């Protein structure tokens, strides 16, 4: 960096840097103290399904196969009550150019950056999205910088992130690798300010609208293969874009009755900003370390308003353990001949459990896979876990303890989702929203309706929580 600006100076300049780097005037959509016009923010981009498909097909993004997992369905039925055990399908998103559904998000972001005349794109991501942006930027002839949280203070790289570093560099991107900590955001702002590049955030409207085609496509494919709509679509859930974009696409394809499930790996007890915990997580995404904070308060993102708003869309929120996901990753490889994952298989583990409770003629869709390879694989993660002193053994997955013990099930009947209490998540969201208003600005009717829409509840529900919150804080 030519000029190194202080931490405080950069954070103080945050709003101006953001405005210049996303090209959206978020202020324009504000309708109340808390409320903003979410649908208009998305609609004003002009990307409906056909236009998004046109952009994506130009770089070979999307139109991934939907594969029925016959053997896994048989295994489910061998464990389920008579007449139970739904058919399980998976959408093989690993078939996208950079190996995950993140290409859908990156394609619209990069397309938009190019259209607006930016010279390059910057993304703050340690995951698949970095490779997706780098791949799209390469195709568009744009420069690309990816900022990663990559290694701990001992210099030990998280192997999955090391693989993303390699992939990004293979696509010709500059990769800034940082040690552990949320100050990554400061570096990200420094780079945006210095370069004037586009902020290819995971949370802009482009990044969410790009995923709608996933939900839209899968409805058509399920209908083609079965003549029905899917009963359950399960999405691996972290920052909330995956479930938001997919659910919107399902609705646009007319799958109104389809239930949407968000599934995360349970990482309770591990701190996301901890240098010590960093290499004891064994998962870099799809876990509760992201999904809990982002579901209870989406507007903690790197743009003023997050276009990923999961509580508007999810019918159920479940967790599975690290060991259960590793187990199912192995089952997918050996029974279905698909070596994929690891994080994307979170929804696979959830599907395996949930399908047992559904009727045999019902349909469950795991809405994505991701590519696998060196570093990005259960073997690499379990070897690292052992090196870090985490115990790895077979046993009852209920004994799994993130950071201390990874328990690989001994029998598939032990795999069972745990429900996150959505009511708890909703009230937590409302409290976060109220906290964000700072002063005693009274909420208008518009704000109450907005919060009700955000949480799929009612004005009464919101008012009750608000009253309770004012009693305990006031």
């Amino acid at each position, binding site marked *: *960096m030519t000029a190194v600006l202080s*931490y405080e100076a950069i954070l103080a300049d945050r709003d101006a840097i953001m405005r210049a780097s996303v090209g959206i005037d978020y202020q324009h959509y504000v309708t109340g103290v808390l409320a903003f016009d979410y649908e208009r923010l998305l609609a004003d981009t002009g990307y409906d399904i056909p236009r998004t498909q046109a952009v994506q097909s130009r770089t070979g993004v999307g139109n991934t196969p939907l594969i029925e997992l016959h*053997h896994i369905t*048989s*295994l489910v039925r*061998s464990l389920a009550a008579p007449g139970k055990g739904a058919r399980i399908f998976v959408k093989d998103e690993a078939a996208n150019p950079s190996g995950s559904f993140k290409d859908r998000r990156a394609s619209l972001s990069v397309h938009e950056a190019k259209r607006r005349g930016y010279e*390059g794109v910057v993304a703050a991501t340690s995951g698949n999205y970095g490779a997706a942006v780098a791949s799209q930027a390469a195709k568009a002839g744009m*420069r*690309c*910088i990816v900022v990663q949280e*990559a*290694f701990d*203070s001992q210099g030990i790289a998280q*192997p999955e992130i*090391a*693989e993303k*570093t*390699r992939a990004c*560099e293979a696509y*010709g*991107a*500059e*990769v*800034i*690798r*940082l*040690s*552990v*900590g*949320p*100050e990554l955001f*400061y*570096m990200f702002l420094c780079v945006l300010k*210095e*370069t004037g590049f586009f902020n290819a955030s995971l949370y802009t409207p482009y990044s969410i609208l790009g995923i709608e085609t996933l939900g839209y496509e899968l409805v058509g494919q399920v209908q083609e293969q079965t003549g029905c709509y899917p009963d359950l679509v399960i999405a691996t859930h972290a920052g909330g874009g995956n479930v938001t974009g997919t659910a919107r696409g399902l609705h646009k394809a007319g799958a109104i009755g389809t239930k949407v499930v968000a599934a995360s790996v349970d990482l309770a007890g591990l*701190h996301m*900003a*901890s*240098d*010590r915990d960093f290499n004891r997580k064994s998962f870099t995404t799809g876990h509760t370390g992201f999904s809990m904070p982002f579901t209870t308060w989406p507007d903690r993102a790197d743009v003023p308003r997050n276009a990923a708003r999961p509580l508007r869309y999810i019918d159920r929120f479940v967790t599975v353990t690290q060991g259960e996901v590793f*187990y199912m990753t*192995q*089952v997918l490889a*050996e*029974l279905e001949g698909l070596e994929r994952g690891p994080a994307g298989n979170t929804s696979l583990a959830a599907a395996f459990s949930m399908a047992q409770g559904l009727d045999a003629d019902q349909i469950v869709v795991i809405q994505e896979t991701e590519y696998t390879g*060196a*570093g990005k*694989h*259960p*073997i*690499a993660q*379990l*070897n*690292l876990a052992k090196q870090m002193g985490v115990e*790895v*053994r*077979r046993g009852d997955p209920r004994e799994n303890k993130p950071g201390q013990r990874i328990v*690989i099930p001994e*029998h*598939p009947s032990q795999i069972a989702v745990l429900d996150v209490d959505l009511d708890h998540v909703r009230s937590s969201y409302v409290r976060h929203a109220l906290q964000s208003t700072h002063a005693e600005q009274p909420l208008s009717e518009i704000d109450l309706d907005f919060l009700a829409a955000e949480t799929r509840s009612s004005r009464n529900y919101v008012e009750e929580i608000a009253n309770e919150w004012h009693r305990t804080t006031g």
Partner: protein
Amino acid sequence: MAEYIKKGTWVEIHRIVLAGGQRAPQVPVETQQVPLEMRVKGFLAQRASLGDEVEIVTSAGRRLRGMLTDVNPAYTHNFGSPVPELLMIGREVRTILGETGGGG
């Protein structure tokens, strides 16, 4: 007798962005105590030796300064040894499905 690394060589630099003790207030103690470090790769702008303060030109065309720490840095992430706890899963589930473990 420092060995010079030629201008234009693909290298990695290292820089301390925030010193230990000067981290963001919200980070836990174990993170607070250690520095925020940065590593970036690029082409060496001037011939130099390991440990020198140097400038690189990155893939995005930026000029960055830091300490020269590595030359043509290797990608060392891999799989490692097969994990015994995963090895039997395939056989077990095939047995449940009533198939034999071997070929077929």
